[in-house]
């Protein structure tokens, strides 16, 4: 029966081409607008590290006090002093600290021009904490951090650019005129948003190209290419040393904690650390610390651009209007066939069959709308670059799940929209219809 109703559906689509075209277009445009904006939203609001996002916490300590902090909230990164002290304390399963760097890299050979590469000064725990995949070699060791070794990890992309993709472990790389020994090459790794460094505002930046030990970078006075926030009443003194040991914040710190109990313990440790600073006379206020896991941090930092949320909401509203439109048109289409329904009912068709037939017909319209929507979505994907910044636009793409979802949403929504018109169609009184004819 389904196949027969499907055929009937197709035939009826052909019978009122204008009305059908209107419905198909409304559904197509509606579903395409929703899917395009959804794909962008999905890309910018996803969990960047699904398996572990609840075990990774970023740490904040208020080093400014209630008079100067931001409405009670500590600044959004740590000072060098606090960051190094917390990492050295080893109170979590793993702990890392990092800052954004942009050294000049000089490729080997006389003809090559130097270029700026982007990366992070961090420690060995970074790679295991954030599950960075390796193509060759691996992370440096904790002893390299302590020994302030001149080692580096480079990305798959940078390895391609510098060494043509060959195993470059053991070779040298020159950054800001210092040579570093490559110990590992990562596979392509680009979590979006870049949750571990929202402080620098690089949430959707290009993939990172290199990593080097934090201790070494500080030794060679590699400056941060990210933010440096000194607050409103911090005297940062004169010169690099005063700055380094002063109260400007520029170092994000992350810790890995296995479960809630560990998180509770760590929060206590943090509070004690702040209390200790208070006793030592550095802080003149009660401990004010924060421990936020990845998703809390993404929320707190409002990572999803408002443009993405507004456009998704507007597109959904647009889809709802298209569906209201479809309800009206289906009603017109079905009621035109009141006589036909009357005959069928009079010949003994139960209401269930009428429901069955018209819902299948609506599903056919939905399918046609979905196919059009798919074409428009594919077209729209090409245009996403016009509407959003390139770094966000490149995240939106048409994959299998989006194709399946486009079709599914179109069919399900149309069938839902068809319930009222179908109910009206099934209520047609056979006797009345037959008489009036």
């Amino acid at each position, binding site marked *: 029966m389904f196949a027969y109703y499907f055929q009937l559906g197709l035939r009826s689509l052909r019978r009122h081409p204008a009305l059908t075209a*209107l419905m198909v277009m409304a559904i197509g445009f509606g579903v395409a607008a929703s899917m395009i904006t959804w794909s962008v939203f999905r890309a910018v609001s996803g969990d960047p590290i699904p398996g572990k996002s609840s075990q990774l916490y970023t740490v904040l300590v208020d080093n400014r006090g209630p008079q100067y902090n931001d409405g009670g909230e500590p600044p959004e990164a740590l000072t060098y002093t606090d960051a190094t002290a917390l990492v050295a304390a080893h109170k979590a399963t793993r702990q890392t600290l990092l800052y954004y760097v942009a050294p000049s890299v000089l490729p080997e050979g006389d003809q090559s*021009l130097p270029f700026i590469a982007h990366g992070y000064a961090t420690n060995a725990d970074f790679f295991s904490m954030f599950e960075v995949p390796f193509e060759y070699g691996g992370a440096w060791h904790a002893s390299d951090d302590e020994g302030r070794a001149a080692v580096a990890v480079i990305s798959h992309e940078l390895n391609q650019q510098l060494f043509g993709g060959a195993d470059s472990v053991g070779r040298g790389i020159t950054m800001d005129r210092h040579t570093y020994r490559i110990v590992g090459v990562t596979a392509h790794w680009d979590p979006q948003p870049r949750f571990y460094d929202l402080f620098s505002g690089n949430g959707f930046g290009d993939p990172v190209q290199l990593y080097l030990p934090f201790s070494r970078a500080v030794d060679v006075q590699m400056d941060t290419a990210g933010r440096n926030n000194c607050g409103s*009443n911090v005297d940062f003194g004169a010169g690099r040393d005063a700055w380094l040991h002063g109260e400007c914040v520029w170092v994000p710190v992350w810790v890995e904690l296995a479960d809630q109990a560990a998180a509770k313990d760590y929060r206590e440790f943090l509070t004690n650390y702040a209390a200790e600073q208070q006793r030592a006379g550095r802080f003149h206020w009660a401990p004010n610390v924060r421990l936020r896991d990845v998703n809390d941090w993404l929320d707190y930092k409002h990572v999803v651009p408002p443009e993405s949320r507004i456009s998704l909401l507007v*597109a959904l509203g647009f889809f709802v209007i298209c569906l209201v*439109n479809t309800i009206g048109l289906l009603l017109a289409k079905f009621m035109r066939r009141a006589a036909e329904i009357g005959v069928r009912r009079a010949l003994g068709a139960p209401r269930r069959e009428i429901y069955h037939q018209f819902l299948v017909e609506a599903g056919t319209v939905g399918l046609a709308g979905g196919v059009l929507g798919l074409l428009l979505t594919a077209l729209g994907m090409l245009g996403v670059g016009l509407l*959003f910044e390139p770094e966000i636009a490149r995240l939106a793409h048409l994959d299998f799940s989006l194709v399946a979802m486009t079709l599914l949403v179109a069919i399900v929504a149309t069938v839902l929209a068809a319930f009222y018109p179908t109910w009206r169609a099934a209520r047609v009184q056979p006797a009345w219809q037959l008489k009036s004819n």
Partner: protein
Amino acid sequence: MQIKPILTAMRHHKAGTVLIALQIALTLAIVCNALFIIQQRTARMSRPSGVDEANLFVIRSDWTDKSDAQRIDAQMQADLIALRQLGSVQDAAPTNSFPLRGSGWDNFIKLQPDQVKMTTDAAMFFSDDHTLATLGTHLIAGRNFTASEIGAQRPRDAMHAAQVIISKDLARRLYPDGSVLGKTIYVSMGRGPATVIGITDTLQAHMISSWANAYAYNAVLVPARLLNDYTYYLVRARPGQLDAAMRDAPKALYAQSRMRIIDRKDGVMSFAQVRQRAYERDLGMAILMGIISVVLLAITAAGIVGLTSFWVGQRRKQIGVRRALGATRGDILHYFLTENLLIGFGGVLVGAVLAIGINLWMVTQFEMARLSLVYVVSGVVVLLLLGQGAVLGPALRASRVSPVEATRSV
């Protein structure tokens, strides 16, 4: 035209009436807000920067050797001489940032050294005595820096800005009812006081985020070369020679020294590109809202055409009877137009409330401004006209139904 019979007739096709009214209401709600967003974004995009955009471009030069600040300073001074000597170049100046750049240094401005909260925030532009001429920004009071006042500092050094030039919006913010010229302000994290020696005409800050809207025209020019890992050179081309200057300038810099990196992709940017980049999101949003509005209006109109055609078809016999009883074609036309107008009024009434409601919700969610009633009123007019336009076709067809139809059975 009698309204009562129309209302009675409507009761016989309640569902269709409600659906059209609902569609008009929702369309009005979304289109009003979309148009408002478009207006807000385009207003933002057309804000003046206060600089001579047509002839201005910027070069970013990263140093390959960042260790020796003195060498960097010498190189910067040599670079500037080389740039200013170019035939296509009118003037050039070094800086850390520029209007519309998006990121840079912003600093809390205070009037007293021991003030707890800032008076306001402002962009810091490291400048020299050529900066104003390069930007094409005029002084409206006071004087420019002299060459001897220009210092040099590394980013982590304490700032010694004994004199500063500030933008007129910042001046007004600091001293709303008096002249700030000659007064001291604190721009360097509470260290030394700085005397305001000049006030510029409009000059936009580098900050373009919405949080910085209140500070968007606050700028402080600090008389120093910043010896950072990189520098920007602002270059003003002679009129009509922008392309030539954009080609000549990087060559001249490389001729000075190859110990620098000028990114191939965005190392040299005309101010038009700077502006485009700054307002990319706003433009995208405006385009998207524009497309959605147009398609939405088209779909709503199509829906009205579809349903009204159905009604006309359904009522051919009644129309025939009315015509046979003496109704003119004009009467039939009027009937359908009035019917649509009544439905439209119902729709826009609900829609206006909905539009304002959505806007109020967005105000709390997205730091948006309050919807101006002009948009609601013009949206109402547009949708009523759209409804009348959409219904005109089917109504004309109805008016052509001949009285003979009355005698036919269906």
